[in-house]
């Protein structure tokens, strides 16, 4: 018994469902090459054709090289972008500085005009404003007073870099001293050159003490203007002095107090107008 011969003209290929992969795997070469080889003998090529091919090849080579180069070195674009950002930041900062200067100039002008205008018509009001600006800390003042200096303990920062917060001057310590000075009759106070105004806060952010949102560092010099002897006596009698003694004994925070004949305190920056009522 013999099996009948398979006579079907077209048998299904076993890999018919994978023709795409087969095509890609088995015929990677462009079929055009075979066709071109087959018809090559039948015609000859003109020299102009060679020139055109050469030019196209040069163009393609240039394109491919440029593509590879720009892919290999994407940094110029990144660097350029960063340069642009840096330039913008610098320009904006310069602009902001300029605006700050403008504000300061305008404030001075306003103050001068205000004094000028009020001096003629309302001299009493001008006097009130000047007194208030001293009290509120807006105006720069000079005079005798008391200088209290607080310094972090020497071993606040260990040799291995760890910080013992208890051995550093904290915002509450400065608040204590400042409140005691106000209570002792101080007319104006500044800490490390930062004038305390009616709205100045003494806070801490992390390990830094902020006065009017400006970070300060030890030693903290508290300048208070007022009658030196009176200030000294009343401050020495206040509870703050007792607490400063405790700080020194327990944590090594040093405090010095001395009177000064001449202190110059800067103004507390531009004042903000919150409310206004018309005259008369």
């Amino acid at each position, binding site marked *: 018994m013999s099996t009948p011969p398979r006579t079907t003209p077209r048998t299904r290929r076993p890999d018919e469902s994978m023709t795409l992969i087969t095509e*890609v*795997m*088995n015929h*990677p*070469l*462009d079929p*055009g*090459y*075979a*066709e*071109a*080889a087959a018809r*090559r003998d039948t015609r000859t090529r003109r020299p102009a*054709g*060679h020139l055109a*091919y*050469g*030019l*196209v*090849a*040069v*163009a*393609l*080579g*240039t*394109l*491919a*090289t*440029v*593509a*590879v*180069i*720009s*892919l290999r070195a994407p940094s*110029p*674009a990144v660097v350029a972008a960063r340069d642009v950002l840096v330039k913008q930041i610098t320009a904006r900062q310069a602009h902001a500085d300029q605006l700050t200067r403008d504000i300061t100039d305008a404030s001075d002008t306003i103050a001068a005009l205000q004094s000028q205008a009020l001096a003629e018509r309302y001299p009493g009001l001008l006097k009130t404003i000047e007194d208030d600006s001293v009290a509120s800390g807006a105006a720069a003042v000079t005079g005798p007073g008391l200088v209290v200096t607080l310094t972090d303990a020497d071993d606040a920062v260990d040799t291995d870099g760890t910080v013992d917060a208890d051995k550093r001057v904290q915002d509450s310590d400065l608040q204590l001293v400042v409140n005691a000075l106000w209570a002792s009759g101080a007319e104006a106070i500044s800490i490390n050159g930062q004038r305390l105004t009616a709205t100045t806060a003494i806070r801490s952010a992390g390990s830094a003490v902020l006065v009017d949102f400006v970070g300060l560092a030890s030693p903290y010099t508290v300048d208070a203007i007022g009658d030196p002897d009176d200030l000294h006596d009343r401050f020495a009698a206040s509870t703050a002095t007792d607490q400063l003694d405790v700080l020194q004994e327990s944590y090594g925070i040093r405090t010095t107090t001395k009177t000064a004949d001449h202190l110059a305190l800067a103004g507390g920056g531009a004042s903000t107008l919150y409310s206004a009522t018309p005259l008369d």
Partner: protein
Amino acid sequence: MIAFVGLVIGVVVGLILQPTVPVQLQPYLPIAVVAALDALFGGLRAKLDGMFDDRVFLVSFLSNVVVAALIVFLGDQLGVGAQLSTAVVVVLGIRIFSNAAAIRRHIFKA
């Protein structure tokens, strides 16, 4: 043969001039380079097979690059740019691999 010579001259020109590519064309560069590599390997294999043809080589080179860039462009417009790029890279990668294997057989007889 003139195609290979021209290509080499073009590479040298590109290395010397180093022109910058417009930012709009940047996304198509990787695929274009892979397509160019495919054409290059195809041409090399055809050369070893003894049926290299300048015309076919240049046309396949050019059309490979253009079609690859076109596919990526289309994919970007349809929101499947990454997937289509992968597809192009897979197909061209397989072709490059097969042609490289053929070239290897020609050179090392193994």
